[in-house]
């Protein structure tokens, strides 16, 4: 069974990328899959059609529209796919079913699709059942079939699950579509923490205490969020379950307790404290024991972010006058400056892939934009430009995407983009957001 599936993939990908099917069949599956890796010279985006809903009426129709829109949006975000515009489709959704036999594949070939996703939904009471079938348009073969169930309100989550299933089936890699973003939003009384799905949907309040709650950062297992709050007047570091609940004190030193960042092994937290009369970086165990100071400078040292192997920490320091991005070993030794240019570089976030650190810089026109720096070669790349102020980047768990805030439409909203600055998309519909933080893979 497993072998048959793999051969199907090899044959499919062989035809998609114009390889002679004999030689692709001889290749091992991992090699063939590698073609769908972004950055591979043979890579080209996979043109995919997500068929229109058969009906948009009633609870099932409405849920189906949400599921289809979610799947389309997700696949557009993924660098692997080129999602075809449904307005160009010539197939009649009323006449097509979910089986290969009922589909006129020439209609899909003619609009340029290589892959076709068909989705149907049914509702019993409050229960929603969604079926996905995925076809290779060229051969008319069904490549995958998946059924997801949930409550009627779960349509968006179900769409993300289906998109993840498609990504996994075609590339063998884990999709990021069931991840979340934690963010701070201004309220009338203060600043509260929220989470949202990675497409900006399903916004949930995590705190509602009327105080100032800031700087969310996820624990490595995604079950809790570290943040700084003034609930007990002093800006202390807390953790809170990522679904909301009671905050637990993690660090309550006198002065600032900010920027808690959990180490990749989940055993330590790096943070910035001002308890010794100056802002310095420390690390401690996740239970608050074994506090150790890592920096000792007259200037501000803050905003630690761990390398994925846990051996290094990048941070902000103004020890040379202006704030710049520095890196040190995670015991505090071997400090090196990473950014030589600009006068105002802040908010580093180390990619889970390890190769890049994203940060915010102010340019010579006093605009804030997002850049990346390679921690080894110090090569700098600019990701945003001429689109208002763009700040506070945070990488997705696969390192392929970045969430950030942008004021390009006036108010501070949450946006995402690819790691190279392409494919920028707004997630929110109103302003007042700051410091988004992308979760690890959840569940």
């Amino acid at each position, binding site marked *: 069974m497993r072998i048959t599936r793999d051969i199907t993939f090899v044959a499919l990908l062989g035809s998609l990328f114009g390889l002679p099917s004999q030689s692709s069949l001889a290749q091992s599956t991992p090699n063939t899959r590698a073609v769908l890796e972004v950055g591979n010279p043979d890579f080209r985006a996979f043109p995919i059609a997500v068929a229109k809903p058969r009906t948009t009426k009633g609870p099932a129709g409405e849920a189906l529209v949400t599921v289809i829109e979610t799947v389309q949006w997700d696949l557009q975000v993924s660098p692997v796919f080129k999602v075809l515009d449904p307005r160009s489709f010539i197939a009649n959704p009323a006449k097509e079913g979910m089986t290969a036999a009922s589909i006129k594949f020439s209609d899909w070939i003619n609009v340029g699709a290589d892959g076709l996703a068909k989705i149907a939904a049914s509702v019993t009471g409050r229960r929603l059942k969604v079926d996905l079938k995925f076809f290779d348009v060229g051969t008319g073969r069904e490549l995958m079939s998946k059924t997801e169930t949930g409550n009627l309100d779960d349509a968006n989550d179900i769409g993300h699950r289906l998109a993840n299933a498609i990504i996994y089936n075609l590339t063998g890699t884990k999709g990021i579509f069931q991840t979340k973003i934690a963010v701070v939003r201004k309220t009338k009384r203060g600043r509260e923490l929220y989470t949202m799905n990675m497409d900006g949907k399903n916004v949930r309040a995590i705190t509602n205490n009327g105080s100032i709650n800031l700087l969310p950062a996820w624990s490595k297992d995604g079950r809790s969020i570290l943040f700084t709050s003034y609930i007990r007047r002093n800006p202390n570091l807390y953790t809170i379950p990522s679904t909301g609940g009671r905050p637990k004190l993690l660090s309550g030193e006198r002065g600032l307790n900010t920027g808690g960042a959990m180490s990749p092994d989940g055993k330590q937290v790096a943070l910035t404290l001002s308890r010794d009369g100056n802002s310095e970086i420390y690390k401690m165990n996740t239970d608050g024991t074994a506090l150790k100071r890592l920096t000792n400078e*007259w200037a501000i040292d803050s905003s630690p972010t761990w390398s994925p192997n846990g051996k290094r920490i990048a941070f902000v320091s103004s020890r040379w006058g202006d704030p710049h991005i520095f890196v040190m070993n995670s015991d505090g030794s071997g400090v090196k400056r990473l950014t030589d240019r600009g006068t105002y570089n802040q908010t580093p976030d180390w990619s889970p892939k390890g190769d890049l650190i994203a940060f915010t810089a102010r340019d010579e026109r006093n605009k804030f934009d997002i850049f990346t720096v390679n921690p080894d070669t110090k090569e700098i790349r600019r990701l945003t430009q001429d689109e208002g102020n763009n700040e506070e980047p945070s990488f997705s768990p696969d390192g392929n995407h970045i969430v950030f805030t942008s004021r390009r439409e006036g108010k501070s909203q949450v946006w995402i983009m690819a790691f190279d600055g392409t494919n920028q998309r707004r997630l929110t519909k109103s302003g007042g957001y700051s410091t988004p933080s992308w979760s690890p893979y959840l569940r």
Partner: protein
Amino acid sequence: MRLSILAIATFVLISGCSGTQKPELELSAAQSAINSAQRAEKCAKQIFRAAQKIMAEANKLAEEGENEAAREKALEAENLAQQALNASPPGCDKEPETLASPNPSPASATSGTTDAANSMDLGETLETIYFDYNQSHIREDSKTVLTRIAEIMSSGGNENLEIEGHCDSRGSTEYNLHLGERRARAVRKYLVTQGVSPNRLQIISYGEERPIDLGETESAHQKNRRAELKQR
């Protein structure tokens, strides 16, 4: 003759443009900034030493002919020396004078009313202290206000002050929390050098989270870069 002048002019022009000349100007400006920040050696030791260290690096680079790098280092050294000076109020390097014992006799009989009078004076004196962009040094125009507050506080009464540090909306949330705290700390330090006991001065930073003015103009930013002094 004319030709040689032209040649010299061209040479100067070329070498000037290419930036490979020894950065004499920058080096001497940095050195004099360090010289005039001598009192910072005691009051802002770490910044001052950083300036000296970078100055030494600048001189070394200049000797090695790394002129562009030397120029950048010299600029940084000058910048740091200036910051060190800004962080060092005049007289901060002098031995603190023996603190006068808290105002004795005349007040003691009617201490209740005097305290009230002092509080009122203090309350009226508590003006907001403003700061330069990305800076935490006390400006000249704020020193009179702070000196007056220190006088009232050390002439009797036992009010405690909370100093709140704030920033404008530019820059990151976290960095601004720390910058705001530096501002509050600078105010406390100044009051302490003027004789106020540090135990009476609490500090807290709100970063950019409690702006006075929600605008994005320079004047709005200036209103937000502040320390507020509150009686507790």
